[in-house]
């Protein structure tokens, strides 16, 4: 990646048309290398993805659905690199730009992409991400990941979203949501913890 592109992407700056074209080219190059069947090309590509920032998040999410499991995994890890890079202290604009791209992925057709976006947002998401994340508490494929991700986000917005969702959640899921609220210091009536309730007998016999 060209140093000029890295600096623009990292800054989350308002880009000129030519700079945007350069960034698109850089991201396309990254994606091409991550889609390489050659480990020696793909590995270094995802490991260096951090500075590519927000513009690379969406394209990489598409690669997460690649049928080649190593390519899909590399794309997932590239997004992790971007999120860990953007989360560094003092990079607020970059972090928010990446979070905004992750929020867009919450509506992705692939549950794997939605899950990954939720967990990544659990690391850098702030109040604006909470409502779209909380919407996935109603998604049977990823609601448990949404609950976990919200549990990790500090602040009243996530607490309020979990409380609000209690009203409409399926009865069985309310126990999990009550747990998250208790973790966050809230008092919850009913729905006692099931954590020590044994449920899985063995088929192995003594003697």
């Amino acid at each position: 990646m060209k140093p000029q592109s890295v600096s623009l992407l990292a800054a989350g700056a308002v880009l000129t048309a030519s700079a945007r074209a350069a960034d698109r080219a850089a991201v396309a190059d990254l994606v091409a290398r991550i889609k390489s069947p050659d480990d020696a090309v793909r590995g270094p590509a995802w490991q260096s993805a951090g500075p590519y920032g927000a513009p690379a998040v969406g394209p990489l999410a598409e690669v997460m659905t690649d049928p080649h499991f190593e390519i899909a995994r590399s794309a997932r890890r590239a997004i992790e690199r971007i999120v860990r890079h953007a989360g560094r202290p003092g990079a607020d604009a970059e972090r928010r730009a990446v979070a905004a791209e992750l929020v867009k992925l919450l509506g992705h057709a692939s549950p794997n992409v939605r899950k990954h976006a939720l967990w990544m947002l659990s690391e850098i998401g702030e109040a604006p991400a909470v409502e779209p994340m909380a919407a996935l508490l109603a998604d049977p494929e990823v609601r448990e990941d949404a609950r976990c991700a919200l549990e990790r986000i500090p602040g009243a917005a996530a607490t309020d979203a979990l409380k609000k969702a209690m009203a409409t959640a399926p009865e069985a899921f309310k126990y999990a949501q009550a747990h998250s609220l208790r973790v966050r210091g809230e008092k919850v009536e009913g729905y006692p913890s099931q954590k020590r309730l044994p449920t899985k007998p063995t088929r192995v016999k003594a003697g």
Partner: protein
Amino acid sequence: MTPPGIPRRRFLRRSGATLIGLGAASLPQILPARVLGTPYSTPSAKDRLNIAHIGVGGMGNGHLGYMLARQSRGDVNVVAVCDVDENRLAAAVKSTGGKATPYRDYRYILERADVDAVVIATPDHWHAVQTVHACEAGKHVYVEKPACCTIEEGKAMVRAAREHKVAVQVGSQGRSQREAFYAHQYIANGMLGRVHTVKCWHYATPSDDNPVPDSEPPPELDWDLWLGPLPWRPYNARYLHGVFRWLLESGGGQIRDRGAHVMSNALHFLGADHTGPVSIETKGRVPTKGLWDAAIEMEVTYQFKNPDWTLIWAQPGEMVPYPDRERVKREGIREGYGAVYYGDKDKLVVWVGDGQVYTEQKALDYTPPPGGVQVPKSPRFDHHEDWFEGIKTGRKTIMNIEAGVATAFLCVLGNLSLICGRKLHWDPVKQEIVGDEQARRLMSRPQRYPYTL
């Protein structure tokens, strides 16, 4: 026999405490009958500790073998075994002569009032949840190292052990070994002067050079229970058994496996169990492919303050060959890991650090002067025996939960610095990362319900 109205666990401890009052502390046994008889006289069946084993593969199988040997001497009763792999479970039941009750779900064991103590040897991501639940159920706990996978898990373990007043021993058994005692004694009595640097070495973490796609779990495995607190994902043969160590979530790589031994000894020898670093900085190389994501090579620098010293975890680092080559062959000394302790007067090498610990002859030959520092010693240099004594007397075990968590925090923070790609700053009093919101959030990992703390 347990008097009516007194919980069995409390009665056993009270009985032991009475023995100590009678001057029986040095006896290598845990129950009243032994005070009155020879060291291996048999306690009555009802006064023996009832032990349950949670996780009976790998290290768990070793623990089970140890307890069965003690059972054959009449010390304990192995009353239950548990595993999420039915093949391993069936083998464990067979090894007990069919006498132990099998369970897939450890929570059945915690419901049994007759179980006094549990030995937890599951993959790392289960350690905290099972330990906390066992403490809440009033069971004494021996839990394999590392104690925890996240900072918040560790704090919860300490709280649970304290609140429920149970003896917890973390399985960093290096502290209990004979030559570790001598190394500790040598360092604590100032023979190195002020120790300013400890450099660990360890060979690299393996990488998965033959990745496989996700697949259906084998029929004997309860994949949901194996995952437990981790987010749900499809089964992959590269998760287990044994190789869970090479994933950050479930094992953390060599630093959380052997680092939990070698760095445990460093904290122990330097009297630093109740301290922590102020900064952690990691450089490393992670696999380019495959499921395993723990660093192949890494160097972590931990800076401690007041007193100031530096701890370095290095994979591979600079291995020091053990000087007695004949002994290496004879005893199978694993030189692939260890540490060098540098003081302003001298240095000392400590090899290995787990079930094997070796040090230099000068430490073995050393006798403290009158009034010198006395360092703790596990009974018979036996880590399990130290746990039993903790159960019996209520005294802190040599690798108590606070110490186990302090060591695990080093391992966790080393990996976190690598994951984040930056130096981390740590408040050792508040036990939290400072000045880095993302890293702070990574001090915990929300757990899949109902497998929660």
